[in-house]
């Protein structure tokens, strides 16, 4: 299970000035990862992924 500590460390890492540009992409990817984890696989998320990419 993902801990809040890791999430905080991840966001803190990307929050520095020269990495800010990557934050939107990281957030979208994180959302996709959370959806994948919650649904335990691609089957239910496939329509979302199709729309996103």
């Amino acid at each position, binding site marked *: 299970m993902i801990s809040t500590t890791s999430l905080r460390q991840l966001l803190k890492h990307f929050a520095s000035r020269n990495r800010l540009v990557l934050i939107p*992409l990281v957030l979208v990817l*994180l959302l996709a990862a959370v959806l994948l984890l919650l649904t335990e696989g691609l089957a239910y998320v496939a329509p979302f992924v199709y729309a996103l990419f």
Partner: protein
Amino acid sequence: MSAVLGISAQSHDAAAALFVDGVLVAAMQEERCSRIKNDASLPIRAAAACLAWAKLEAGALDEVVFYENPYGKLERVLRAGLRELPASLRQLPRALAGQLASKVWVLDALAARLGVDRAKVTYREHHASHAASAFFLSPFERAAVLTVDAVGEEVTTALWLGEGSTLECLESIHFPHSLGLLYSALTAWLGFEVNEGEYKVMGLAAFGRPVFEAEVRKLISLESDGSFTLALEYFDSHTNTEVGFSKKLEALLGPRRPVERPWNLAESADDRRSADVAASLQLVLEQAMLGLARRAKAKTGADALCLAGGVALNAVANAALASSGLFSELFVQPAAGDAGAAIGAAALASVERGYRPRPMSTAALGPAVSGAVARSLAQALGLKVESVPDPTSSAAERIAKGDIVGWVNGRLELGPRALGQRSLLALPHPVEVKERINRVIKRREPFRPFAPSVLESQASRFFEPHAAHLARFMTTVAKVKDRARGSLEAVTHIDGTARLQTVLESSNFGHLINRVGDLTGLPVVLNTSLNGKGEPIVNTEADALAFFTTHPCDVMFIDDVMITR
């Protein structure tokens, strides 16, 4: 009390290392437990073995340290993938999925699987871990440190200054410019497996002439300040992670050598050409390493040099550095690749807690074997078992008789080399011994050499001067003296060198070699790792017996038990 567990994983060759009050009490690669060569999965079994050796529960650990920054690694994958769009379009989603599905959450996984509080799980940077594994385990108070590998988070090469309990990064070179990636790409081009076949390239190089130096120098530009840049059009790590080279490299050097095609250097012009490419690559690597060492000397003025990272396992390049005279002393610990970075990560945390590690004196840091266990297993298998009061003398007698002997004694060694704990031993002559072990027992490529282990006090009788701290861990090569070549023909490579190991007489392995010397007049044995083709070095009594029952070695000694068929 301070107990710190270091962990390396997720790339290749995962390992765990345990420091208690600054003392490295145990270290082990996961592959030795899982029996999967270069196993990269979280080293939970290796960690459990380390804790068991120290009689500690996971809950007693003060800190668990991962050997790289998982968020920094995600950033590198993102940046490199975006930079290479659209070429990386197929590879990037896979790489990101791998990162976000598990790798970036590795600290959580470690906490959950080891059963420790997440707050106790930290990380150190990849190259800092490498540098610490070299400097804090070295015998030096002040040294330049070079860390050279494929890639960590972003850094591929770094120069450090180690002084007392401090380690300062002075300069670094970033991905994708990497000596490790250059060597790996050509390892794949030569038809070998990346992260495994690099040793074979080093051995093959001795059979060739560096006539393709100009071609290899097109792949890498070596600057006068020691830095380097790769000509990226020849590499393809963003779209082809299997081989890492592009079609342009094949246009330059010819088509890739087919994987697994048998080698025939005597009769195949293609194979001799491959050896020439390997020799050219090795030469250019040595030039690059010498450039880095000159820079290290100029920046630090240090007398000693420590090396770590996968490239530091190139014993031939290490010997070139030693003979350059730039530094009076060198140190490369036996697990200089990613496995050893687990030691470095834990060493950094130990130093921060006020415990500076002592110099590394042995690689025997894994679990020990028991004669009683071996006896009952061997009897169950219907093998002949005999207790021997003095196994070193008994094994020496069998070696002197010309037998090929499995030797399993004491604690398992860390690193890719067998150093006399889990070894296959034989006389260092005649050359047919090498043929028999290569072709029948280990089923390796015929060009691959075997190493000699010699008493440290006797090494100068047989070998030209060599770096003492490296020879103890088999991380260098030395010229075999002309007058010794006849008696060491099974362990002398085609170029007249040997990857020697010097052994202290006070150890069990030293006793054995000494006894072989008494019986034959030659205190030297052929020493190769005890493992079958494609397998990790044996760990337990059961692993050793599995090897014995499936390979034609003559006799097996496990602790104080002699086993025959």
